[in-house]
C-alpha cells in the first residue's frame, strides 16, 4: 500500500473550493518506538474552527502523533478520518494538509522567494505567473519579511527563517495546519503574528493541530482550543 498509493496521484486537485465544514477525527491510534509504547487507543475529533492543542511531557509522543496525522508515519492501529473518508489513502487530504515542524524544509542555496515559490508550485497548477508572484510577495509582506525576499535562506536569522516557513501556509489553500512547536525560536512580535494568522484561519473555517509545551491560556487561540493530553505510559 505504501508503495502503491503514491502512484495513482492525480495532481489536479481542486484547491479553490474549501468545503464549508472540515472535520478530522482519529480512532484508536497507537505508536511504539522500539520497545516503548508512546500512546495507544488515542481518539480525537475536531471540526472547522477548532484547534487541537496536543500537550504532554517531553517524549510523550507529541511529535510522533503529529507526524502520524500528517501522513509521514503510519499508525500501527486505527484510522484517521478526514471529511468522512480514510485520510491516508485520500489525495484531497494531502492537498489540504500542511505540516510545519522544526526542520523547516527550506534550502540554504535558494532565496526566500525561491523557496516559497517551490512550495507554491508544488500545491497548484495555476500557471498565471503574475498572480502567483503577487501572492508570494503578499505572503512575505504579511509575515514582515518582504525585505528579505532576495536573500538566500542561509542569510536569514532563525526567526526570519521560521517566518518564511509559515509564509508557506499563506501561498496555498490549506485547510488543515499541523504545527509542531510553532512558537519556538521566534520573537514576541513574530508569535503574535502567527497567532493572528491562526485565528484568521480558524475563523475562516480551517482546522489547526498544534503542539506547544506551554499553556495557551493567554493566547488568542485559546478561544478555539481543545486539549489532547498525552500521558506518560509505563511502557508495558
Amino acid at each position, binding site marked *: *500500500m*505504501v*508503495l502503491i498509493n503514491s502512484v495513482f496521484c492525480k495532481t489536479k486537485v481542486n484547491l479553490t473550493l474549501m468545503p464549508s465544514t472540515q472535520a478530522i477525527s482519529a480512532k484508536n491510534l497507537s505508536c511504539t*518506538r*522500539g*520497545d516503548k509504547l508512546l500512546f495507544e487507543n488515542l481518539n480525537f475529533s475536531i471540526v472547522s474552527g477548532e484547534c487541537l492543542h496536543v500537550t504532554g511531557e517531553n517524549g510523550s509522543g507529541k511529535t510522533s502523533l503529529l507526524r502520524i496525522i500528517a501522513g509521514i508515519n503510519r499508525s500501527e492501529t486505527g484510522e484517521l478520518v478526514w471529511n468522512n473518508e480514510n485520510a491516508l489513502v485520500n489525495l484531497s487530504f494531502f492537498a489540504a494538509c500542511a505540516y510545519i515542524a522544526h526542520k523547516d524544509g527550506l534550502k540554504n542555496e535558494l532565496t526566500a522567494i525561491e523557496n516559497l515559490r517551490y512550495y507554491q508550485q508544488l500545491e497548484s497548477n495555476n500557471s498565471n505567473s503574475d498572480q502567483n508572484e503577487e501572492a508570494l510577495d503578499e505572503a512575505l509582506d504579511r509575515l514582515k519579511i518582504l525585505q528579505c525576499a532576495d536573500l538566500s535562506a542561509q542569510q536569514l536569522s532563525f526567526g526570519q527563517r521560521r517566518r518564511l516557513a509559515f509564509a508557506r501556509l499563506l501561498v496555498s489553500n490549506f485547510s488543515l495546519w499541523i504545527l509542531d512547536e510553532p512558537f519556538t525560536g521566534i520573537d514576541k512580535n513574530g508569535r503574535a503574528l502567527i497567532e493572528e494568522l491562526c485565528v484568521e484561519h480558524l475563523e475562516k473555517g480551517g482546522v489547526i493541530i498544534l503542539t506547544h509545551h506551554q499553556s495557551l491560556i493567554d493566547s488568542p487561540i485559546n478561544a478555539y482550543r481543545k486539549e489532547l493530553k498525552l500521558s506518560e505510559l509505563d*511502557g*508495558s
Partner: protein
Amino acid sequence: MNPFTSIWTFLSTTYHRLGSPREFYRISRYVTPVFGFLFLTLSALGAYFGLFVAPADYQQGDAFRILFVHVPVAWMSLFVYVVMAVAGAIGLIWRMKMAFVVTICSAPIGAAFTALALLTGSIWGKPIWGTYWVWDARLTSELILLFLYFGIMAVYYAFEERKTAEKAAALLSVVGVVIVPIIHYSVEWWSSLHQGVTVFAEGGPKMPPSMLLPLAFMAVGFMFFYGYALFLTMRNRVLINERKSKWVRALAMGESI
C-alpha cells in the same frame, strides 16, 4: 461445502494463524521437529546412496560425490533468496509482521548455503579444473549472491528501530530478486567456461539414476533443513520481538501456551 471452498478456508485460516506471532510459536512447536525428522531421514538416505551405493563417475572418479552436497546447497541458496524476497514483498504489501521475520531469519541461512556452495564448489574445482577458483559463470553468480545476502543483513543491522530495519531489508531483498536474473544472464554471457546444465537439460536428465536418486533425496532433505533451521531461528526472533507481551512472559515462567 465443496472441496475448493474448504481448501480455501483452510489456507486462509492457516495464513491468519501464522500471521500472529503467538499462533506461529504454538504451531511451530509441533511442525519444527517434523521438519527436522524429515531432513534427517532424507539426507541420511541421500548420504547412504550418494556415498555408498552410487558408483564412481568414469571421468571424475569419487570426487563427484562432492556434488551431492554442492548441488543441493547451491539450489537452496537461490531458493532461500526467492523465499526471502517473496516474504519481504508480502510483508511490505500486507504489512504482515511474520513475513518480515521470515525475511530476516532466512538471510543468514541463505548466506550460509551460498558460502557452502562456493566452498564446496571450489574444493570440487581443485581436482577437476586444477585450481580452486575459476571465473566461471555459476561460481561468480554465487559470489555475487553472497554479497547480496551480506547487503541485506548489513541493512538490517544498520537501523536501530526494528520496524524500519525489517522493512528496509525486505525492500532491498525485493529489489535484489528483480536484479538476480539479470546478474545471472550477464555473468553467463560474460563467461562460458563451465559445463552446461546437466540436470534439467532438454529431453530429461542426462544423469544416471544412481546419481539422480541421492541428489533428489539430498535436495528435498535440504529443503526441510531450511524449514527446520528457519523455524528454529524464527521462534527465537518471535520471543525477542514479543518479549513484552503477556504470552511470552507466561512462557518464560514455564507456563504452556
